[in-house]
């Protein structure tokens, strides 16, 4: 269905080869997963399929890409619209209409399909993706998962043979992600649709993949079955790391397989570890009767909680549950309608300038919002000056976090992980008492995530600081947090130690916990520790 023959790609004004001599054949009805570190060219590979690269972006392309017998060199992306549906990284940026129904019809209108045919197809897709309840809704008011479904739907109305998706679950909570992926799985099996996905969170997609294309960042790509690739790959979901840690001969890709392989191991009697109580310090933040509403709409119902020194609190919940509102209120950028926040005796709303920096550090969803310098060096210098610390200190922090960034790079040219690293080092160089992060792992690969986890744990334990992090990433929470607050519809529905909260709900359990239940282990390290205790 898709044939890459000897494809090489270089972007103009760049010396780096994105792809080098890639040969790849994707058959009909295959679900192919593209993996690789951030910035390695996954998106470019996807956009090569329908010719957006190089028709839309420019770039030097050699070799040939053939889609269903049509060479993309000869046809513009619009000419392949009936054959390929493409869903971008951020579907909201690609929407061209106001309501769900109009959005679904857009591509068919553009290709002059008769109105009665259009009607029928729209109804089909509304049913297929269970969108019929939302048909007249304004797209801007939909949740992340619903938007993703609309984006997939608007590609499917064209009856394409190929569906291409760029990180379809990165912004979704675990349940919404599962919904989207199970729809894709069904399409592949029922309609023999060919699907190509790029995704970082392998734990979510790996069980659906037929084959993997692993791009290593230097232009080379390896193609193989998931088992082959993941046996040796650095990029691997926790379940594969678990198999490696247990010294299993084969690796399993689904929880079901892995549970079969580890049955004997699980049933051993393990000594319960000496209950290790981490001492938390005094209260840093107390939230008293906090209430937030936007106009008539409640974002957060009256909430009381407190956060102590040394705690790493993960705030979880569906898209739109009120996580960001809580975080922003604590950071003092939105004014609560009732109640308030006490941060070491002061109100975060009144903090300004240097005092603010030394009390609260905040990393927004788009870390680049914080950056305005022309180079990394300039940003770091600004950080040094702002915080009155020795010059070069901020860059040092950055170098520990993400080594090997040239100080002359423009912040825009950094990869997602590097940009987060830069924003984080700017904030950390002020050594704030509270650090708040709003969904930091969108688009981060495993390596960048590992570095982030290490830095944050260090920061909380070494300096006795509090960290609050809103995230959908269960694996991150399992590795990082000491406490989880679960929010639903503006209310705290659960609040307790990570292990209790994560083990009590199957949807939010990390992979290791699912495999090893009923043993109370969340991450691979827990398993290794348990083995060490029982020689």
């Amino acid at each position, binding site marked *: 269905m898709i044939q890459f023959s000897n494809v090489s790609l270089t972007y103009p004004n760049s010396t780096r080869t994105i792809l080098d001599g890639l040969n790849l054949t994707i058959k009909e009805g295959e679900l192919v997963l593209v993996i690789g570190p951030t910035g390695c060219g996954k998106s470019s590979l996807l956009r090569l399929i329908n010719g*957006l690269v190089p*028709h*839309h972006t420019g770039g030097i392309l050699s070799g040939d890409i053939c889609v269903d017998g049509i060479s993309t060199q000869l046809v*513009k*992306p*619009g*000419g392949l*619209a*009936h054959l*390929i549906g*493409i869903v*971008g990284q*951020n579907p909201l*940026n*690609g*929407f*061209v*209409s*106001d309501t769900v129904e*109009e959005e679904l*019809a*857009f*591509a*068919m*209108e*553009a*290709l*002059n*399909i*008769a*109105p009665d045919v*259009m*009607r029928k197809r*729209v109804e089909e897709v509304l049913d297929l993706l269970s969108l019929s309840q939302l048909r007249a809704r*304004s797209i*801007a008011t939909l949740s992340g998962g619903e938007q993703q479904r609309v984006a997939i739907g*608007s*590609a499917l109305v*064209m009856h394409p043979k190929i569906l291409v998706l760029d990180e379809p679950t990165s912004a979704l909570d675990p349940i919404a992600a599962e919904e989207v992926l199970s729809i894709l799985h069904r399409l592949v099996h029922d309609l023999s649709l060919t699907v190509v996905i790029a995704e970082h969170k392998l734990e979510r997609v790996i069980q659906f993949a037929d084959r993997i294309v692993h791009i290593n960042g230097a232009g080379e790509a390896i193609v193989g079955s998931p088992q082959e690739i993941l046996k040796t790959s650095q990029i691997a979901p926790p379940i594969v790391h678990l198999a490696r840690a247990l010294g299993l001969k084969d690796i399993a890709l689904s929880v079901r397989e892995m549970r079969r392989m580890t049955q004997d191991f699980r049933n051993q009697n393990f000594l319960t570890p000496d209950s290790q109580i981490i001492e938390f310090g005094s209260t840093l933040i107390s939230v008293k009767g906090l209430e937030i509403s936007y106009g008539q709409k409640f974002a957060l119902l009256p909430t009381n909680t407190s956060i102590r020194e040394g705690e790493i609190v993960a705030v979880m919940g569906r898209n739109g549950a009120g996580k960001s509102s809580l975080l922003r209120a604590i*950071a003092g*950028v939105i004014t609560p309608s009732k109640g308030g926040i006490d941060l070491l005796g002061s109100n975060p709303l009144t903090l*300004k*300038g*240097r*005092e*603010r*920096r030394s009390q*609260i550090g*905040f990393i*927004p969803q*788009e870390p*680049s*919002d*914080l950056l*305005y310098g022309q180079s990394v060096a300039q940003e770091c210098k600004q950080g040094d000056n*702002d915080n009155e610390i020795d010059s070069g200190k901020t860059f040092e922090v950055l170098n520990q976090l993400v080594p090997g960034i040239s100080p002359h790079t423009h912040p*825009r040219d950094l990869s997602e992980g590097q940009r987060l690293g830069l924003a984080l080092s*700017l*904030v950390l160089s*002020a050594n704030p008492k509270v650090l708040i992060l709003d969904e930091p792992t969108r688009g981060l690969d495993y390596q960048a995530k590992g570095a982030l986890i290490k830095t944050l744990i260090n920061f909380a334990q070494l300096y006795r600081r509090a960290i609050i992090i809103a995230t959908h990433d269960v694996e991150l929470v399992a590795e990082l947090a000491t406490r989880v607050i679960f929010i639903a519809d503006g209310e705290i529905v659960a609040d307790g130690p990570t292990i209790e909260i994560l083990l009590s709900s199957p949807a939010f359990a990390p992979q290791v916990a699912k495999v090893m239940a009923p043993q109370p282990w969340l991450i691979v390290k827990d398993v290794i520790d348990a083995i060490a205790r029982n020689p």
Partner: protein
Amino acid sequence: MKLMPHPLTWWIWSIALAIGIARSNSLAISLSVVGVASLVVLQNREDAPWGESFNWTLKVAAFVILMRVSIGVLIGVPIPGTKILTLPILPLPTWMPGIRIGGTVTLERLTSTLHEGILLGSIIVICGAAASLTSPHRLLRVLPVMIYEFGVAVVIATSVLPQLVASLYRIRQAQKLRGQELRGLSSWKKVAIPLLEEALARSLDLAAAMDSRGYGFSRKRSKYRPTPWLVTDSLIAIAALITLFSSWSLIFAAGLPLVLRTRTLVTK
């Protein structure tokens, strides 16, 4: 109750009003048109990013008036008349004859630049009103495919611009959290750089999405649901055209001496 007219209606309305303002050259007309337009926007705008953009249009218009007045007063040929104050004259090299910075500020100079500035600002406000009343996405659907490139440009301009306002708010919030005090001109750079970057990325995303969904590929377009032109649309358009023509006749009635006076001033 909010009106939901045809996407072209408000644009016809605003273009007619803008031409009316320019033709009539009258402060009273332009201010009353702006007043009416503001009321219409407050009453009818949708709860969407483009709906929010009107407040910013007002700010931009105020800025334009301010700039026009300060440039008009500071630079240029002096007009004789009632003296208000005298500014020191900036010495310029001899190869720049006829240009003067500073000097005597007369009442006539001040009022005429203020007049021009307000007319300019009013036209900006009127166009901003149409942008905040019309969903750019609905506008795209009624534009003919023939002007494909133009259609893409219009959609990007009109949908990215209002989104800019939302991003501006978000970025300012983030910068405030970095403890940056956002005052003065230098702070604009801190906001403008991430803002423009994002606007560019969004525009490219949108253009790519439209391209890959076949927009403009077929010469003909079908309509999923026809956008009807209703009586309300005709009424709005007629009302605007009446304003336009009445401003036209005004030129020949009361406005004529005024036009002549400005003409003579220019030719002097």
